[in-house]
């Protein structure tokens, strides 16, 4: 990763924690990213600066092709920027090799996908258990955490169900439990409600918000779902690969417990 020589605007949010504040979860500085299609380079991110605080639910908002998923991928350490610096949970991830990045994701980052991405040959229990297996968590501890996670998302009765035996909303709950079960410091969700109907979408949003607060985790979501924006602590609009000033979000003193479908 290289730092650009351009004169930088200060990152959206704050580059350094203020006295008494915790370290930011993510610091993005001058990040550029292009995708090559044949001989043509298509810029997707054009010098993005961003600071995401811990313990907050942040939404990257924008239309299709705006670059929000690309930014989410960079923050999730599953892609590398062409230029710019990226610090995730205090770690300069640009300096990490592929194995180190894999280990970093395994230990610190959870993912929720638009299409749920559950492993079809594994039951709900086993899908949630899998990240703990990768992390080498002992059997007893694993069992306790998997059951607790599935209980939290309201699927204690569907432990043995395969993804094909679950509804869309239930699958996404399993995916959320899978992301939370290893107690990561950062969870990223790419359009988590895009494949759900409005009722299930609302329930999933409420669930994510509740879990985010219970676990005190930094939650970054790419979405243009207004429900999500309404629950967010911060909304970062992106247009044409550039980050716009954050939108104001409704102040929420209390989030009601989700009504589980």
């Amino acid at each position: 990763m290289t730092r650009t020589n351009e004169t930088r605007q200060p990152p959206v949010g704050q580059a350094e924690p203020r006295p008494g504040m915790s370290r930011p979860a993510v610091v993005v500085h001058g990040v550029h990213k292009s995708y090559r299609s044949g001989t043509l380079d298509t810029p997707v991110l054009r010098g993005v600066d961003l600071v995401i605080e811990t313990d907050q639910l942040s939404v990257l908002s924008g239309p299709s092709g705006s670059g929000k998923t690309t930014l989410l991928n960079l923050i999730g350490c599953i892609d590398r920027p062409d230029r710019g610096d990226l610090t995730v949970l205090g770690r300069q991830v640009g300096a990490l090799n592929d194995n180190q990045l894999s280990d970093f994701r395994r230990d610190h980052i959870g993912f929720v996908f638009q299409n749920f991405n559950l492993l079809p040959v594994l039951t709900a229990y086993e899908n949630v258990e899998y990240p703990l297996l990768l992390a080498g968590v002992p059997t007893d501890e694993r069992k306790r955490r998997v059951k607790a996670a599935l209980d939290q998302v309201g699927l204690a009765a569907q432990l043995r169900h395969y993804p094909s035996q679950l509804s869309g909303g239930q699958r996404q709950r399993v995916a959320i439990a899978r992301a939370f079960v290893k107690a990561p410091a950062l969870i990223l969700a790419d359009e988590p409600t895009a494949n759900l109907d409005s009722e299930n979408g609302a329930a999933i949003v409420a669930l994510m918000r509740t879990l985010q607060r219970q676990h005190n985790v930094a939650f970054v979501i790419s979405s243009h779902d207004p429900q999500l924006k309404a629950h967010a602590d911060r909304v970062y609009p992106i247009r044409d690969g550039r980050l716009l000033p954050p939108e104001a979000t409704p102040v929420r003193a209390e989030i009601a417990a989700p009504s589980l479908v």
Partner: protein
Amino acid sequence: MFSLNSLALPLRNVMRNRRRTLVTLITLIVGEIALLIFGGYANAVVDGMQTGIVQQIGHLQIQRKNYFLLGTGSPMDYGIADYRKVIAAVEADPQLKNMVKVTTPLLQLQGIAGDFNRGVSRTVAGYGYVAADQNRMREWNEYRFPIEPKKIALPEGQSDVVSLGIGVARTLRLCDALTVPNCPKGEVADKNPGGKAMPDDIGALTELEAASPNLPASDGQPRLDVLAATANGAPNVINARVAAAESLGVKEIDDSYMAMPLEMAQQLVYGRDTPQVTSIVLQLRSTADIDTVRARLTRIIQDHGWDLEVLDYRTLFPAYDQTRGLFASIFGFILLLIGTIVLFSVANTMSTVVMERTVEIGTLRSMGMRRAGIARQFLSEGLIIGTLGTVLGCGLAVLCALAINSAGFTWTPPNSIEKIPLVVHMFNTPDLIVGSVAALLLLAAISSLLPAYRAARIPVVEALRHV
């Protein structure tokens, strides 16, 4: 609650597309069966050949040095005079006692057999045997072929009889007397048909021998004159009864074979001189002991300062190794064909699997699985398919082998006129099963390597975007 382990996920993935897995498994199963059945058949042929050879010439022979290379043309110059001492030394050796089944002398000679008065004769390869020892040798059946031991036609305990190969019997017009099969009818032995007259001195010698008071009166069995050169180069003739004709399984041998008691052969070759033999034949209880016994024999020979050498049946009968080599090359060719099919079949399956599960690869990688973990997973799936295919193939091949072995099929090998049981020897040595399983497993692993490597190299973002 089922707990995932390293094999659970690959195993379930293998069962995910059952039809495709089944097709790949069938390729492996058929390949494994073909390899094992052909390999077992080749083993049976080679084992059968070894059995036939060992029954006739033993595992090892002690001979005068260079008799094998030079002595067959003049066997009289390469006799073992003190063969009884050699046999006694072998039989007295405590190490050899449990490994050697038969130790017996053999005198080979070249001669002419004929009824000179009827004008029929032919050259013969004579074998002076101890008939009882030869019959014990024919009981050897280490590989348990479903055959009954066949005694040699030379009667035990009689000193004035010979037996002939059926080809010799036909030539000497003894078809009716010896009930030889496949004799052309209407062929009448003319007086000296187209041949030269017997020299007068040989004729006189023959008549003298036939009138010998030492010979018992004829009991209706045909008689023959056997003419050979003595060790001193003088002609010697013995008149003998013909007990029977037998088939040795190879026409060329049947056309020249004549067996006689050792004493008769020694009298024919050495007259009143010290009797000798050309070989001392050793048959072992197990072929596996051959190197140990040979080393021990060599030591005994060295200790006694005898001018002898030890030769094994593979040296004495080179066609054995040639046949083994032939079957090994055919097996190798079949392995190459089957291996190629397995290689492409498994590779095709695994490539399709990787393509279908690209998003899953991205998901696992985003959860923190390293590239090596992805590669290991697909490699495991290839190995599971390989293991299932080869194990099932082995099981079915065993059933096929049992069916073939109990079906009672027979076949006639090349250069043979006797049918032998068609069997499959799969279990005599683990080499065949272990080797074929290992080869196909290795191929399955190799076939999975490239798809697994490609799966591991897919960028996470591309994998997640895959449609």
